[in-house]
């Protein structure tokens, strides 16, 4: 089991969800977050005053998949979230020790 954490553009959330569902992923969690990477924020201007907005809005998609689906999931996310411009985001993969479905008590791959 691996956890995939993808930081993506908020406008790409729907496309990423659709792509993941197509390869058989059945659940994920999305949250609105702020942050910066190479994009390094943006400059906004109000009444002629310039403001450097360091932390810009991103969406964080978190999902846990069985090991055999990791490569497909990464490909699906990358393809759906890519515009080619700086600021497309990043994907992190981490190992998951255990997963339990609360309702039934099932664990491991069965719980996903």
């Amino acid at each position, binding site marked *: 089991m691996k956890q995939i954490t993808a930081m993506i553009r908020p406008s790409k959330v729907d496309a990423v969800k659709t792509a993941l569902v197509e390869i058989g992923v059945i659940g994920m969690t999305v949250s609105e977050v702020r942050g910066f990477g190479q994009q390094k924020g943006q400059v906004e201007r109000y*009444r002629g005053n310039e*403001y450097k907005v360091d932390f810009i809005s991103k969406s964080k998609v978190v999902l846990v998949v069985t090991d055999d689906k990791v490569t497909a999931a990464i490909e699906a996310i990358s393809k759906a979230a890519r515009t080619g411009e700086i600021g497309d985001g990043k994907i992190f993969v981490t190992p998951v020790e255990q997963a339990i479905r609360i309702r039934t008590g099932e664990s491991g791959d069965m719980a996903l």
Partner: protein
Amino acid sequence: MAGGGKTPFATFDLVRERVLAGVQEPQMRRYALVLLATGAGLLPLMAGAAHAALPKAQTDGADTLLMLMGSALVLLMTPGLAFFYGGFTRAKNVLNTMMMSFFLMGLIGVLWVVIGYSLSFDLGFNSPFIGGLGQMMLNGVGGELGDAPLADGFNISATSFALFQGMFAIITPALISGALVERINFKAWFWFSLLWSLFVYCPLCHMVWGGGYIGPFGTIGALDFAGGTVVHISAGVAALVSAAIVGPRSTYPDNQRPPHNVPFILLGAGLLWFGWFGFNGASYFAAKGAGLSFLTTTASASAALLTWCMIEWFVDGKPTAVGAATGAVAGLVGITPAAGFVYMGPALVIGAASATACLIAVRIKASIKFDDSLDAFMVHGIGGTVGALLTGLLAAPALVPADYFPKSAEILAKGGNIAMLGAQFQAVVFTYGFVGIATLVILLIVKATVGLRVSEQDEERGLDFVAHGEEAYDPMNG
């Protein structure tokens, strides 16, 4: 009366004795002489204004309805202003910012009925600088049934006039709040707006519209259709002085934040524009002719919005929503003193000129790092000043009839628009001086008694919670 006892008079006598003792000193005596001489010089001015003979008229239903509708429109400007200002601040200060305007619908609303109207429009003191106490609680205003006309020559009821003027009294101190948001103590704001309304707004209102020193019946004879001096220059100058005395926010200029809600700013500006039809439009006092003041008002706002956005487009590359809102307000401020005295060409010119001047002022302010937080002086002070001066330069003599504006009509007939510009300039300088000094005194009194600012920790926590125990955006689901 002076016979001891714990009466207010005893205190007064004590103060008087101290002052008299001081006058024995040669230095003090010299000051006292200078004061006395100045007083004597002012005496002829105190004699009260001679009103031209106007025909007796019945109260007219349509004209009075214009005033009632106008009052409702102007009232809506105060919550509009609350949204306009509220959008600019940080999310943690939006309620406090909006309350600084909204609360005055309570405080000044009561004050106006109790004493404000009387100080502005009663003639009891027979002075060109302040009204009187004869119409406290609006006693006698509008006669027994409340339908008597305001005065000879006016077809509107006195009650509708008192109501209409009250709405102006509410929004004027609210405008000042833009300079002080995110750091002023709400208790200080309570006392400041109360004292400022009594000792700056009411006298100025009397001087301009109550037949006093500045206005068309007075010594200067300046024109102010709907409040260029009374409302905008006075609020603007008060904003400038108070921003200087209260000092910048602890986060200024290093940690500035962009406006937390730009749609609020647009909503507020839209409500202000809508309400300004009452503010300027209904100031015509006659339904038949009010189309002119409605038209000049909206034409100026349109020209100003367009001008502000075009300048941004050329200079910065993009027209902004905040710029469109600010430009519209600048144009509305600019046309305020002129709305019933000019035709369309000048109205467009006033709008474009106000927007340009305010935009330059806003940018200068930003570059010298002066924390008039929401540009209250830069928009109302500068816009009001440009409007007041251009009113002199562009007023059409046909729109300044001698029976309603005797001194101004005389100036226009004798010296033309250049002489009128002179009178407007005098009125502007007088207003800057009077408002500047009086505001300073009030601020120092409030500073010495209740203090002006919240602590730096409270500023950091956010004034919504600190001052009101509330938060605008659900903290449980934040």
